């Protein structure tokens, strides 16, 4: 097990290194940030001075090695635009994003898992049809459109929740709904198909034949096994939502890392973009690792052993 974890950690480092190279190159392809940091009418000498101050005159590989050397020590440099350490800015905004993502995912799970199970148990019934329509809508509606619709109905029309900003738990509801909708649909679909598959298994039939109550069969035998693929989906979904938060945060003026990222990309704030990608990639990698490590506890058939050689 420990060997497996070690190997996975090494792989993760490789992934992060790859991500950092790609982001670094892509960013530098998008053009010179000094022109965006200075007024349009700035003179060439001011531009040159700023380029030198920001260290942008060095060859690209020198800049990358410098970036990597610092990043390993946890120093992603000063944000060009904000003149604050990039990590400080991220840690200021990350809690808001994690809160939104967790709320979105939580909401998705609370609605989607029971809905999926119900749809599977009452296959081809009205309940199933309603769930299917819900899934279709959830996956087809663009977050952007859904977000504005939620604002119009629940903030402007009914006045139940604030339209924008982050002021306590009430302001979390609408963005979480907008963010969670897509995942809700996907999780419900997975729960339904997983459940259907398990319900058709021999051991379920045997359990029923043995005269166990339907409730016990469903929740103790079937759901436990149907939950395994769900864990993978939830893990991946958390990562997807972290990325998806970019749009939701912009619509609802949610002060998270997604908005910080959009802003940083548009202003070619290299250090900040690199730091955000590194932090988000790390979160993603860690979640994947945790999901993989949870498997053996859910499914005793899965055992991590040293490779045969």
């Amino acid at each position: 097990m420990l060997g497996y974890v070690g190997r996975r950690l090494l792989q993760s480092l490789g992934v992060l290194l790859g991500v950092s190279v790609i982001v670094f190159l892509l960013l530098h392809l998008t053009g010179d940030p000094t022109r965006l940091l200075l007024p349009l009418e700035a003179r060439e000498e001011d531009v040159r001075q700023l380029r030198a101050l920001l260290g942008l005159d060095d060859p690209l590989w020198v800049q990358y090695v410098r970036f990597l050397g610092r990043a390993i020590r946890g120093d992603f440099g000063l944000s060009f635009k904000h003149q604050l350490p990039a990590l400080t800015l991220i840690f200021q905004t990350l809690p808001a994003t994690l809160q939104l993502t967790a709320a979105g995912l939580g909401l998705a799970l609370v609605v989607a898992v029971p809905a999926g199970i119900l749809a599977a148990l009452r296959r081809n019934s009205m309940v199933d049809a309603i769930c299917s329509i819900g899934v279709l809508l959830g996956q087809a509606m663009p977050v952007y459109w859904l977000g504005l619709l939620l604002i119009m109905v629940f903030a402007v029309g009914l006045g139940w929740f604030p339209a924008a900003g982050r002021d306590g738990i009430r302001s979390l509801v609408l963005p979480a709904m907008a963010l969670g909708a897509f995942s809700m649909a996907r999780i419900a679909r997975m729960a339904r198909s997983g459940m259907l598959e398990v319900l058709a298994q021999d051991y379920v039939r045997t359990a029923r034949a043995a005269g166990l109550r339907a409730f016990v069969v469903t929740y103790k035998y079937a759901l436990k096994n149907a939950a395994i693929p769900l864990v993978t989906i939830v893990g991946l979904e958390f990562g997807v939502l972290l990325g998806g938060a970019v749009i939701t945060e912009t619509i609802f003026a949610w002060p998270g890392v997604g908005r910080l990222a959009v802003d940083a990309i548009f202003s070619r704030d290299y250090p900040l973009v690199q730091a955000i990608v590194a932090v988000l990639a790390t979160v993603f990698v860690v979640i994947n690792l945790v999901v993989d490590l949870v498997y053996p506890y859910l499914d005793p058939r899965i055992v991590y052993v040293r490779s045969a050689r």
Partner: protein
Amino acid sequence: MHGTFRLPLMLLALFLTATVAWAAGEREVTIAQGIDAEFLDVQMTNNIVTLIINGAIYDTLLTRDKQLQIVPHLATSWKLVGDKVWEVKLRQGVKFHNGEPFDANAVKFSAERIQRADFKSPQKGWFGTLDRVEIVDPFTVRLHTKTPDPAMPARMTLMYQMAPKYVAQVGDAQANLKPVGTGPFKFVEWQKNERIVVEANDAHWTGKPAVRRATWRPIPELGARIAALQTGQADIIVNVPPDQMATLQSSKAIRIEKVPSCRIISFTIAQIKGGPLADKRVRQALNHAVDMQAIIDAVLMGNGKRLNSWMPPNVWGYDPSIPLYEYNPKKAKELLAAAGQTNLTLTLQAPNGRWAMDKDIAQAVAGQLTENGIKTTVKVIGEWGAYVRTILDHKTEDIAMSGWCLPSLEPDHWVTPNLKTGEPVSQYANAEVDKLIEQARAEMNADKRKQLYGQLLRVIHDEAPYIFGYQQMDIYGVNTRLKWTPRGDESIRLTEISF
């Protein structure tokens, strides 16, 4: 007995607390803009939204009144004492929020801080002509310029005053996070991308502000910004698109405020690319081939004022006697025929979402040009960074939609960057224009200077380096409980708000 009174007492206390909180809320204001402040160290920014917010915390030496005329502020008077020396008397008894006195030393410190090589201020260019600050006495300074600079008073409206001891004590980074100025409001809190809160500085030299507390909220999405106004979450919102005005006005709690802006929108013709666009007659023909008034009426619902040249009416130097280009397709065709360009095909580039209805206006302009025989296609470059790069690299399409407003409101800052040969933004080269620009920006006699600008703007009108567009109308949504009218310099001053 004891227990009997406890509940009513608690309810009463709750009621009183609620009443007090409500009363306090009545004199609070929330303003929603598209973006957050970049810095609260005012010398680190040239961004207009950021300057507006900082304007509550910091004072400048001079300022602009509601008519945009230059008036005293922390400086009580200013005069030329030599061709290159301005003497400035300072207001006495003014204190920074930390108790530090404002004096000549602060002026010198603030001016020199911007020019420090290791200080990444984008304001360096604003004060490029300033040579040094001489302290005459604690409340008199002399600003020595490298060349005669008639724009110095306009520059002084942007000389924000920093507290020297405070900055030295806490450092540049901390001065940005916990700003200290002499302004009418004191800093309370800054939650990045969430809110900036300031509270009234009752010791301010202009007296107690009517607004007791103000919050600036960045709400980038227009729909959410409008919803925030409708739900009472915001009291003032900026950049209301003309097509939303009717919806907002249908609510009793909301009114619309409009003001002609310092921002002008036109279509830069890339003369320096050569080819047909180097011919003045072709550029004039383009102006005659577009019915700009019809576009303003249809797309902007009349919210714009046509331009006769490259300067808005609220900038000193504007000349109202210059005529507008007449919409005359026949004349356009004649001019094109005379230039031998009867089969012209052009591309017009436009941003998307930078200025009110920008893409739609560009499409309307291209449509009219095409209708009048000049086949024009629109290329939308949605990302602003990419758009800017085409301009600075001098690689724009044949025509590029352009917008301009600088907080100095100084005429030279309209013409030099945009029209002088070789300037980063300029897509135009003309020795006559260059000469007039240089004369006007060095002329110390105001009357003569104004004449020179009139002459310059007339040449620009005739030379037509733009399809002249319009002066933008700034449109705000305002909660009716506020007494406030907007200013033409895009600034929102909390001291101009009452209830």
